[in-house]
């Protein structure tokens, strides 16, 4: 309990001690989206979204339910491919390579761009196997020792190792919600991605577990480019350096998080932040 209390306290401190808020504008660009549209059958869900995602920073997408922020997030690792009838237009480039290139292997793309989902969804396997699954299918470990190392270091990076080190062979679904979500983060990290997409990762968690995950996201920022969808504006303000506001399938405003929250240009953004819409 002490440990948890400590973590909560820490998150309440100003998050960004190391990084000047406006630094995010100078970061190299990792992902570039241009005129991205998404149709579900005849229904258009996204209308020409263009945005740059800076390297090793947290970018958050906010907006009311159904505004298309999750749909847009899922464009980055082509998860929309798995939805029948969904079609994506425009271009998204990862380090200059079009990820919608027909020659691109989506499996390799998803090894570079990991994803954490809204509801913790560990596989119904052991904690070890959950983390080891990605390295196994992508052939990242040459030996059992390699694999053990990856599993341990991934669990450590996800801040879960100390809690589960004695029960790696127990089912991952037996963990608490917050632990499950950190297991999912460890699972995503284990493949060595460059980008991690998080789709409302805390919406199914209690405030303490949420605080732990938020702190973890802040730590992960040093090594990974993170894009997070959240419906909690406080969360966006706490964890992200760049924020984009979506409304009805359109990108209304994007910019340095601090600016968006303190000095939004658009009235819609202001209304949403003030709690008048959404």
């Amino acid at each position: 309990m002490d440990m948890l209390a400590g973590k909560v306290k820490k998150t309440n401190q100003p998050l960004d001690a190391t990084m000047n808020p406006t630094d995010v504008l100078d970061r190299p660009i990792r992902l570039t989206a241009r005129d991205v549209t998404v149709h579900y059958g005849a229904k258009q869900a996204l209308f020409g979204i263009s945005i740059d995602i800076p390297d090793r920073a947290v970018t958050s997408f906010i907006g009311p339910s159904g505004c298309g922020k999750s749909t847009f997030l899922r464009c980055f690792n082509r998860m929309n491919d798995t939805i029948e009838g969904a079609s994506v237009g425009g271009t998204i480039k990862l380090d200059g390579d079009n990820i919608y290139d027909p020659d691109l292997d989506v499996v390799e793309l998803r090894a570079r761009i990991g994803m954490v989902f809204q509801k913790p969804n560990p596989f119904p396997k052991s904690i070890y196997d959950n983390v080891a699954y990605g390295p196994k299918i992508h052939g990242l470990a040459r030996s059992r020792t390699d694999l053990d190392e990856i599993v341990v270091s991934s669990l450590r990076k996800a801040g879960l190792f100390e809690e589960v080190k004695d029960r790696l062979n127990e089912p991952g679904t037996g963990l608490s919600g917050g632990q499950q979500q950190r297991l999912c983060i460890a699972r995503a990290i284990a493949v060595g991605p460059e980008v991690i997409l998080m789709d409302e990762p805390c919406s199914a968690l209690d405030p303490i577990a949420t605080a732990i995950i938020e702190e973890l996201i802040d730590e992960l920022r040093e090594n990974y480019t993170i894009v997070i969808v959240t419906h909690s504006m406080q969360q966006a303000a706490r964890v992200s350096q760049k924020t984009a506001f979506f409304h009805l399938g359109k990108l209304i405003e994007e910019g340095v998080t601090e600016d968006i929250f303190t000095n939004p240009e658009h009235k819609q953004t202001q209304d949403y932040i003030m709690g008048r819409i959404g």
Partner: protein
Amino acid sequence: MSNATISPSVHSSKAEYAKLRARRHAADARLRIYGIAAITSAIGLLGILLFTLILGGYSAFVQTHIRVDFPISAEYVDAADPAAGNYRAIVSSGVSTLLPSETPAQARLISQILTNNTQFFVRDAVVKDPSVIGGTLTMEIPAADIYDQLHKGNISRDTIEENRRVTDEQIVWFDTLDEMGRVSTPFNWGLFFNADSRFPEIAGLAGAITGSFYALLVCFLISFPIGIFAAIYLEEFAPRNHITDIIEVNINNLAAVPSIVFGLLGLAVFLQIFGLPRSAPLVGGMVLALMTLPTIIIVTRNALKAVPPSIREAGYGMGASPQQVIWHHVLPLALPGILTGTIIGLAQALGETAPLLLIGMNAFITSPPGGVLEASTALPTQIYIWADSPERGFVSRTSAGILVLMGFLLLMNAIAIVLRQRLERRW
């Protein structure tokens, strides 16, 4: 009354609301009673079925045997070739030591107290152990059907002789043997280890059980893989369009097609066009596979549908290919449901009679099949054959056969339940 405080204000009085509440409670109670009545009558009907079957069939699980000492004289059997001896004479002499006879005709009647195949039992025993030649061989031989039924009380001694299948004289012979302590009624292993026979006392289900086993094996080997892959394709890969809709409707229709139609198809296609052997478990299994296939496809699709989409998302999100997501995550989770459905489908196939009749699996065959191409019967068709036979002994054997079939069904369903509980991952 505390309830009154929460009564909706639209009701003018407490009394009015109480009336409404009483009506609602009565309706709830009525629904419960209907349900209980329905369950009770269903269980009652099942109970009656089981009761009549056990009542009619229990006597077939024991068999009247008579102990006879056969003198194996070297006069009738040559030690060099024991299989070629005159065993009919040996049987006659064995029986005549027990019951002396006055005329040769009477002697023949007396020897018919044992089952018709006694000479073959004796021959087999002698061939197995030729050292008895010159000595005496004591064997427990099944009594002929009428004596068996007499002993079990299925033929009443009170009936007048003309209306009875056993004469007074035969009763005296049997009672004499009984008094000599030579009559016993051990458990009828022959019911399970003998094949069919014209003589009920030695007729058994071995041929039918083997035939059913082979047919189900063929049925499983064909319908399980095809069913699973068809279901995986339809559920995981097929686009939703008119063609898949039509396929889906047709699969559901196929599951409802009367089984005799599949039998006709088997007859027309497998026997007449492909020229496969009649009465063979291979053809039976192929026909049953056609029937089981839609069931397996439907249960597999439902089991796949029941796997939470979050597991698929997790797999795809990790960069697993569709094939890896299915093999590593979806199928293991769906497996308990698939296996349960498959076993229930096979249990249905086990009890299916009509298609097997049409492809000739109701032939009279006195030895268990040695393979899937040899002529054989199956459990339900064997029951059908016995139910059609006039001998008194087959009446109880029909019921016993049904009980055995139901035993196998029960066993398969039990396996399904155990498998589901073992494999189901609740975490």
